[in-house]
């Protein structure tokens, strides 16, 4: 991976003795290019990929899974161990549950969840029915409100995120392939601007942490590239599935900034941009993180 100059080498060596006592396996200690992610002993994920030119300053793409401890990695490689799968099961039930004034469930129109194959790999994208750039959450609520006559779900709520995980799972292993065409180019440019904006009193941009310093520890946490191909993410820390916008919000808050709202245009555009930074990696969600 990209090696940075400065005194890092010496610092890292000192760190190895000083604080690696916790016994976690980290990217710095192994060649990420030889680490394989095989789910359920058979599904091989692409966790290292070449970036699409012109999208970012990254010279290799790494799935966030590579930056986690051996134990956390193992949880994601077995669907029986992955706590995110409990929520997928719940979503399967919701998929078949009739709700709203039209007497319909998701299944009424879409049949089996497997009909959602490919969706997660290509979103956010221009939605013909909404007439604007849409995330999966927006499409789900569009169906609920306008096709089922049901109440919309909270953008980062448990039901929404579980449903997103079910939809995501149908694309697992497919390469992320989010397009930037003329219809969404302005959104993409806006998202890129936000990615490089140094926000808050700490004046830190997404790029400061996830492009310039991935593979390095910030306090106890090992910084990844902040990729979203693994979302939704089950976090051991809060014991639930976390959506992309909830994660963005947490990261922006940590710069001592006033955050954007989940579901806001700013975060939709940022999601589009961040998604394209991961084009070529496999869809790996629902992932497991610390």
């Amino acid at each position, binding site marked *: 991976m990209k090696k940075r100059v400065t005194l890092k080498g010496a610092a890292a060596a*000192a760190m190895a003795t000083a604080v690696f006592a916790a016994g976690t396996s980290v990217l710095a200690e192994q060649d990420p290019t030889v680490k394989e992610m095989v789910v359920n002993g058979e599904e091989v994920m692409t966790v290292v990929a070449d970036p699409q030119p012109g999208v970012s300053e990254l010279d290799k793409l790494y799935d966030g899974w590579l930056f986690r401890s051996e134990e956390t990695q193992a949880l994601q490689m077995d669907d029986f161990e992955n706590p995110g799968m409990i929520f997928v099961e719940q979503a399967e039930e919701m998929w078949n549950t009739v709700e709203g004034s039209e007497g319909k469930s998701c299944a009424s129109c879409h049949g089996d969840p497997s009909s959602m194959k490919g969706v997660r790999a290509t979103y956010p994208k221009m939605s013909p029915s909404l007439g604007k750039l849409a995330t999966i959450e927006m499409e789900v609520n569009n169906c609920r409100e306008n096709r089922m006559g049901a109440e919309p779900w909270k953008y980062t709520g448990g039901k929404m995120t579980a449903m997103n995980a079910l939809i995501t799972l149908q694309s697992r292993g497919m390469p992320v392939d989010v397009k930037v065409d003329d219809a969404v180019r302005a959104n993409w440019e806006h998202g890129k601007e936000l990615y490089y904006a140094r926000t808050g*009193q700490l*004046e830190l941009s997404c790029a400061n942490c996830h492009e310039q*310093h991935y593979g390095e520890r910030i*306090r106890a946490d090992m910084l990844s590239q902040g990729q979203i191909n693994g979302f939704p993410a089950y976090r051991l820390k809060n014991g639930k599935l976390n959506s992309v916008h909830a994660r963005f919000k947490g990261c922006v808050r*940590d710069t001592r900034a006033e955050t954007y709202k989940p579901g806001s245009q700013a975060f939709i555009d940022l999601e589009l941009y961040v998604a394209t930074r991961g084009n070529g990696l496999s869809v790996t969600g629902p992932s497991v993180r610390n």
Partner: protein
Amino acid sequence: MKRAMLSMAILVAGTVTATAAEIAPNDVVFNDGAVETPLTDKPGDPAAGRKVVGTKSLGNCVACHQVSEMSDVPFHGEIGPSLDGAGDRYTEAELRAIIADAKKVFPDTVMPSFYKTGPYIRPGKAFTGKAPDGPLPPLLSAQQIEDVVAYLKTLKE
């Protein structure tokens, strides 16, 4: 001279406590990566500075820097260089400049500016994610900056 006038102005405004005259964030003079004049009259206290460096709600310097002497504080980061020997590598005036506003010394650095009041993009109220109620004070006070400088001076190889 400038400081004397400044502290008088502050006294007139009635905002300063009895202890020390301070140089306000916007009045700090950076010269070639150094700030010669201490920000307060009261000499820095290395023990207090050590606490600022190691405490999350204060400087939280260890989030990004490793300090061997601070092994009692768990989890040091590796975003910035180790601070071991910082007292040998830099003069007091240089350390003061780095802590007060590292961007004046290392352009575009990720290191936050600790003695600055803006302008910021979307400033927030600490780690709440909310808009602040009014103008934000600098991340560290003038005295805390002096304390941190005093602590860093003790870090010799």
